[in-house]
């Protein structure tokens, strides 16, 4: 790598949605020889699938509609890339089977009392988690014949749960909420799920307002959260997370550092790339990239800003996602109804 300064270059603009785009998901396993596949979901009640054509241009190859009758808030691919779960304000989560060319809705998960905000597949693909304004997170077991059984209702948050995210390797679930806290859930080895840790402002240098998103690093020993308090917080664990836990009191996660002053408005999304670069997207229409400061004089690990891309979109950025097949390709989704693809160029890692 030469010493050229890091730059986020806009490569493509994907237009088509008729309302704000809330969330994005890259297919983790699009198939041998297939290029990257991106799903986007929007306030127009649809999900769009985007693929790169042979000439390099991106096109919308599918529109998943007539299933949800309100905003589709979040979408997530199963680890084998064959299923797409979509979570909606209509209080349901739909599961679509992807054959490589077609999509078919094969299941509808009901149970939440109101809007579903997020959906996430466990690393093995055998569990699905959803969360809602009803303050709960639900864990569903995937069964043969497109059946989904609720195995646990996670109670603990005192407000709207904004996002759920599974650990990259273990069956550990993290949820973040309008109640400003982050909760870590694990099963005790006997399929009983418990909250094993709660990260708050008072006890753990946690956030002082709604926490919107969480993302794990590749290794799974760190996670980043972002908030309405306009900060990102990096959390670290040295614990052996694979050991079963019961009840609270296992303070595995601790606050590592807080990134303040980089965004002027609510930070809606953060995502950690496989090269350990953190991307954030916010209500100030900007994207920021952060990496660990390797030559730190400060005791302990710290993170520095690599670049801030101002006016990345014309309106709020709701979601940022790194492409699993190309760790320098970043997708962003905005209130302006578009999805943008960015290429990270130049030297970013010392």
């Amino acid at each position: 790598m030469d010493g050229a300064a890091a730059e986020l270059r806009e490569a493509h603009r994907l237009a088509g949605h008729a309302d704000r785009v809330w969330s994005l998901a890259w297919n983790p396993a699009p198939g041998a020889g297939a290029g990257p596949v991106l799903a986007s979901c929007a306030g127009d009640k649809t999900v769009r699938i985007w693929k790169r054509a042979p000439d390099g241009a991106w096109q919308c190859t599918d529109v998943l509609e007539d299933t949800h009758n309100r905003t589709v808030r979040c979408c997530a691919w199963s680890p084998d890339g064959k299923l797409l779960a979509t979570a909606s304000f209509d209080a349901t989560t739909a599961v679509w089977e992807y054959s490589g060319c077609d999509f078919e809705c094969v299941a509808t998960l009901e149970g939440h009392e109101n809007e579903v905000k997020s959906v996430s597949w466990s690393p093995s693909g055998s569990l699905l988690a959803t969360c809602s304004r009803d303050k709960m997170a639900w864990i569903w077991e995937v069964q043969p014949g497109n059946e989904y059984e609720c195995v646990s209702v996670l109670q603990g948050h005192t407000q709207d749960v904004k996002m759920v995210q599974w650990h990259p390797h273990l069956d550990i679930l993290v949820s973040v909420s309008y109640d400003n806290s982050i909760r870590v859930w694990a099963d005790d080895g006997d399929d009983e799920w418990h909250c094993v840790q709660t990260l708050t402002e008072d006890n753990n240098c946690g956030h002082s307002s709604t926490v919107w998103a969480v993302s794990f690093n590749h290794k799974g020993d760190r996670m980043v959260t972002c908030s309405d308090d306009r900060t990102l917080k990096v959390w670290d664990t040295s614990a052996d997370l694979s050991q079963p836990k019961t009840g609270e009191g296992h303070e595995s996660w601790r606050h590592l550092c807080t990134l303040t002053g980089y965004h002027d408005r609510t930070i809606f999304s953060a995502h950690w790339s496989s090269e350990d670069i953190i991307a954030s997207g916010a209500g100030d229409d900007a994207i920021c990239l952060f990496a660990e400061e390797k030559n730190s004089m400060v005791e302990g690990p710290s993170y520095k800003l690599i670049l801030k891309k101002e006016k990345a979109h014309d309106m709020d950025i709701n979601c940022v996602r790194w492409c699993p097949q190309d760790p320098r390709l970043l997708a962003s989704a905005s209130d302006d109804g578009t999805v943008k693809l960015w290429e990270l160029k130049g030297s970013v890692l010392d």
Partner: protein
Amino acid sequence: MVMGLINANPVIHEKKERYLKCSIGYLVVVLNVFLHHIRDIKDPEHPYSLEQLNVVTEDSVELNDESNHVRFLMKLTLEDSHMVCTRVTFTPTVEHCSMATVIGLCIRVKLIRSLPPRYKVDIRVAPGSHSTEAAVNKQLNDKERVAAALENPNLLDMVEECLSPTFD
């Protein structure tokens, strides 16, 4: 006690309904004046004839107006960068406190429909004017909660009714 936006009781007593319509009706009048002056703001030739219009700096305007029902303070900041922020502070009268979230929602909808899409809008209840003002403000400024509330047909009908012109 904070009203969950999406659970707002659609059956509003007549008196409260009239209060809402008056407040929002007045907001519409105030807003039209405000918008008119946004367009003229960079033109030094244009006289600002209204007493209420108070030019604070070259690039910000505060429009401070009162009615018997709700007091509005709207501050617009124009910046060289493309981001434009508007903060609206409103003060509901004491006996109409419980309507604060609904009033705030109506203000937000009116502004979304009246201002260019790139405007950022913050809506707050004036400090000291409401017992659960932090909770009300948090709801009003959570765009996901607002978006979901506006997909509720009952709540949307109520907002539309409040924003519609009164012909009596």
